[in-house]
Structure formats: C-alpha cells, structure tokens
C-alpha cells in the first residue's frame, strides 16, 4: 500500500517528536525535574513509527521499559506523557506509573512495561480479544533482542501460532540488553530465525529505514487481518544513548567505535533524505516541522511543570476498579 505524501510527512513528524521528546526528557531528568530513570528510544524511531503507521487507532500495542517511542507513535498526547514523567496528577497514570508505565488505552496503547518480555503475552491476549471481537483488529508487541530469550517469548509465539492470532511480534534488535551484548547472550544472530520454532513467518528488516519497517509491518498486518496468523518481524537497529538515563549515569559498556556508528545510520536523516529526494518535502519544510515539534515539546514540558502534584494519600486510590 503506497503511502500518501501527507502520511509520509506525518511519519517524519512523529519520528522527530520521539527524538525531541526523549532528548528533552533526558535533559529534564538530569536537571532534577524527572525522578527515577528514563530509557531513551533515540536511534530506534523508525521501528515504532514504521510499525504504527501500518496500524489503525483501534489496534492495540504493548511496549517495553523503552516505551516513549511506541506511545507517541500510537498517537498519545505528549503533554500527558510529559506530565506523567514529571510525576504529576494529570499525567496519563496520575503519577502512579512514570516513564516505564505510560499507557493510553484510548489510542490502543496498553502500556509500557518494566518487566522484560512481559508485553508479549499481553499482546497475545489483545490479539485473542481482537480475534474474538471479529472486527479485523490486530495487536503488536514491541520487545528487545534481550527479551527474545525470555520464556514469555516462547510461549506467546506458540500460542499465537496454534490459534492463528492476529498479532505482530516486533523485535527491536539493538544488539544489547543493558550491559550484555547479544553476541555474548544470544545463540542466534537473527532473532527472526526463531519463527521456525512456531511455524510462522519471520522477517528481518533494516530497523533504521522507516519505509522498510513499514513495508514489513504492513504485510504482516494484512496477513493478520486476513486471519492468516502472527508474524515475527525483526528490526535491526541501534540505541544511541545509555541503556537508561539516571541521576548518576554509569559508564556505557559498549565499545566507543560501535556507539559512534549509530548516528551514521540515523533513521531520521535517512528518511529526510528520501523525502527531499522524492520531492515530498524540502529541507525548509522539514525544518519547519522540526520547529513545530520543538515548540510542541516545549509546550508539553511547560504543561508538565505547571501541572499539580498528586496528594500523598492519592497513593491509596486506584488499587481496585469500581
């Protein structure tokens, strides 16, 4: 399905929004305004945006500890996201979840997740719901290369396969699982080969190329909507920053030469080049989008800073639904 110029520019805008959001969130964390830790998605923008561009609003996704990109790509409002990071009462989770648990069920974003691999079963269940609803909905689980060694990966893919669930398992292979390299902890180079174990298709794409990701996702989504079952989509990518931004950042365990390679495959620059080459945009029109995004993120930060803090005893609400 060919993408319209408007869609392409939306994708560009979303990628820039993710990057800007995460850069500014890290700054605010280091400035002491955001508590806890923030896992930056910078470098991986093409994955969330490529996949979510193939989805409808009603489709459901589950995410990871590195969840800002998925949340933005699925259409959440960055104001309420930022307010959540700031621990304010009008954040998406009223300050109860923070960066690692941002969720916006109204756009089908079923939550970032602090437990590696835990989102796969949840998405499998969302896919089961979609199948039982019968409306052609699909579910997507984003997860990392490290997560592909968890048992939840194994059980989920088997379950989805036997029930032909409409689900995409999207592995963002950035070759590191916090301090551990995939080389040292992963028995296979390409996670997609693991699809064989469940009798389902597995593909590997360049996860820094948003159009390649979109193509793969779009095909898998079509398959899913047609009742043909799940697909494992591996996106090779790289994380530019530390595993997590924290008050006292530990040293990055990755080799510096490797880190330096990241920005040489910048998903945003690559896509910008494509857009201008194809005449969909000019450098100026992209600059304008960049400026609008910067303003929107500024606004989100202002919104967050102006937002009220929760009351201490708000801790006691929301344990049980009415």
């Amino acid at each position, binding site marked *: 399905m060919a993408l319209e110029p408007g869609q392409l520019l939306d994708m560009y805008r979303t990628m820039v929004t993710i990057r800007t959001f995460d850069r500014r969130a890290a700054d605010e964390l280091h400035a002491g305004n955001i508590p806890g830790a923030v896992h930056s998605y910078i470098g991986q923008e093409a994955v969330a945006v490529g996949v979510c561009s193939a989805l409808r609003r009603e489709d459901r996704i589950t995410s990871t500890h590195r969840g800002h990109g998925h949340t933005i790509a699925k259409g959440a409002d960055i104001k309420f996201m930022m307010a959540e990071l700031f621990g304010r009462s009008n954040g*998406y989770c009223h300050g109860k979840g923070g960066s690692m648990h941002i969720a916006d069920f109204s756009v089908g974003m079923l*939550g970032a997740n602090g437990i590696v691999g835990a989102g796969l079963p*949840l998405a499998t269940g969302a896919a089961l719901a979609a199948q039982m609803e019968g409306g052609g909905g699909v579910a997507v689980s984003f997860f990392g290369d490290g997560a592909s060694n968890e048992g939840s990966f194994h059980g989920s893919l088997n379950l989805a396969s036997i029930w032909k669930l409409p689900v995409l398992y999207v592995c963002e292979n950035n070759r590191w699982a916090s301090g551990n390299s995939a080389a040292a902890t992963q028995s296979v180079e390409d996670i997609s080969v693991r699809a064989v174990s469940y009798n389902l298709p597995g593909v590997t794409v360049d996860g820094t190329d948003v159009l390649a990701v979109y193509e793969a996702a779009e095909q898998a989504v079509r398959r899913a909507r047609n009742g043909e079952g799940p697909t494992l989509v591996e996106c090779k990518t790289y994380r530019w920053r530390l595993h997590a931004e924290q008050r006292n950042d530990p040293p990055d365990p990755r080799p510096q030469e490797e880190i330096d390679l990241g920005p040489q495959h910048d998903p945003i620059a690559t896509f910008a080049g494509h857009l201008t080459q194809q005449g969909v945009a000019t450098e100026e029109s992209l600059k304008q989008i960049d400026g609008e995004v910067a303003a929107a993120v500024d606004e989100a930060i202002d919104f967050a800073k102006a937002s009220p803090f929760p009351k201490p005893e708000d801790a006691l609400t929301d344990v049980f639904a009415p």
Partner: protein
Amino acid sequence: MREVTYVEALMEAFTEEMRRDDKVFHLCGNHGPLAALIPEFGEERVRACPISEEAYVGAGIGAAGSGFRPIISPGMMTFAFTAMDQIVNQMAKIHYMFGGQAAFPLVFRASTGGGRSAAAQHSQSPHPMFMNLAGLKLIMPSTPYDAKGLMKSAIRDNNPVVFFEDQILAASPTKQEIPDEEYTVPIGVADVKRHGSDVTVIAISKMVSQALAAAEELAGQGIDVEVVDPRTLVPMDVPALRASVQKTGRVVIVDEACLTCSAAAEISALITEDPATFRALKAPPKRVCSPDVPIPYSPIMEQFCLPDKDNVIQGIREVLG
C-alpha cells in the same frame, strides 16, 4: 432447592455467567470438567492451552484489558508459579500503575491444599503470598453454596480475582443444598458457620469442616464454639472477625498454610492490634497451621502436617486454659 457438589456449584456459576455475558470465556490448562461447557458455548469460549502458563495467564490479562472477562484455570496453583511474574507484576499492578484508566476483570482460579499424597510440588497452600501481594482480591470458599455465589461475584467483579479451590473440596462428592433461584455471595463478607459463645475459631477453606467437627465434638463436653469463615481473604471482613473475638474473648485460627506469614498470622495481628479486641482477649490467640515444611508424600507424614479436627480441639483447649 437442589443438592450440588463443590464442582457442580462452580459449573453452575460458569454456565449462568457465560449465558449472562458473552465476554466471559475460559483459558485453561486442561479442559477437565469445563469440557461440559463446550456443547453450549463452543471451544472458542472454553480454550485448552499449551503448557505455557506464563503465556496464557498473560494473554488472559491482555484480553481482560481489551474488554473480555477471562476465567483462567491453570490447574494447581503450584504449577502456576511458572506464571508468577505475570501475576505479580501485571495482574496485581497494572490497573494501579496505569492510574486506573483500564479495568482488568478476570478470575484466576487454581487448586491449593494438600491431602492427596501428591507431595510438595502438588500440595501447597500459598494463599498468604497472594495476600501480601497488593492488587488482587482473594477468595477461598469452603462450601458449594459459597463457591457458586462467590464465583458469580468474582466473574462480575471488575478486578483480577484469585479464586483458590481446595483440591480435596473440589474432588469431594459431598453435596449441599443451594437455592433454585439465582444468588450471589458478596466478596468481602465473612460468614459465621456456627454460633457459639466460649471461643471463636476462624477457619479457612477446607479447615472450616475440621473446625465444625471439632465444635461438634466439644459441644458434647459443654464447650460452645463459634466458627467464623472469612470466605474472602482480600478484602478481609475484619469487623466480623473482631466482633466474634470480642464476644468470646478467645480465638483459634485454623489455616492449612505453613505457619510463618500464614493468613493466620495476619488474622492474629488484625485481632491483637485492635485495642478493643486486644482488651477483650482472655488468652493469647492460637494459630493452628501446617508446620514450615514442604508437604511430604507419605500419608502418615502428610496427615501429621495438615491441621485436622484434633489439632483444632487441642488449640481450643489451649486457649481455654
């Protein structure tokens, strides 16, 4: 009125609630008795799963967050520790973590308890672990009547409800009368299974029958025992428990769990930390629990571990001084 067994009572609850709400469906490790639901509701609503508890328990949570009301039955709770991460970190926490924006209505049911010579990996009473885990309701019914009424309430509840069925009760042919018309039993309300004035016995699940047997035996000796069944462990009907103890001044708590950090420990603390109840106590509260051992296989040793009528009587004699 009709007479039904524990399992029959649960099956009635499932049938009625599945008719009432087409969002209710089953994910189970093995069909077992649930197979009887297939003719009416189809395999799509009664799904046997591969041995991947983590995956299908998590899938149940995901389906609950997507508008369905799954009943998840992995079988024994001991097996389901393979899904413990999904239970601890997702089921119990995500409604809260997400600021209450989505409900996760599901029933997680599993069998617990010992008494079938199945050894430690198939005989455990881990309900106290779930009491310590905030975010889950927890039900342990002792009779067919309660099982049906509480299961219906659990299915209708908008939260994850853990429903532990004692494996001896679940296999028991014993029948109890239940009404022909529909009824529910509210979550969080204790039931006085026997009124008495000399001593309160608070007993959980299968232990209720042991407590009643002890009460029967002691009645012949002029000792008037009150037996209170909390039925729901979270939320706990604290006022009911305290009221009984304030009346009798003496309490024995009977719980099949291993002693340390048992439900009995919690109930003991709930009783003694309340000034009025503390003052009413004429003797130290007594816990009657399993010892802190993995439950052994050989019946002789297993019976030694599981509290029974005699242990209850001994406990009562102790608090009577």
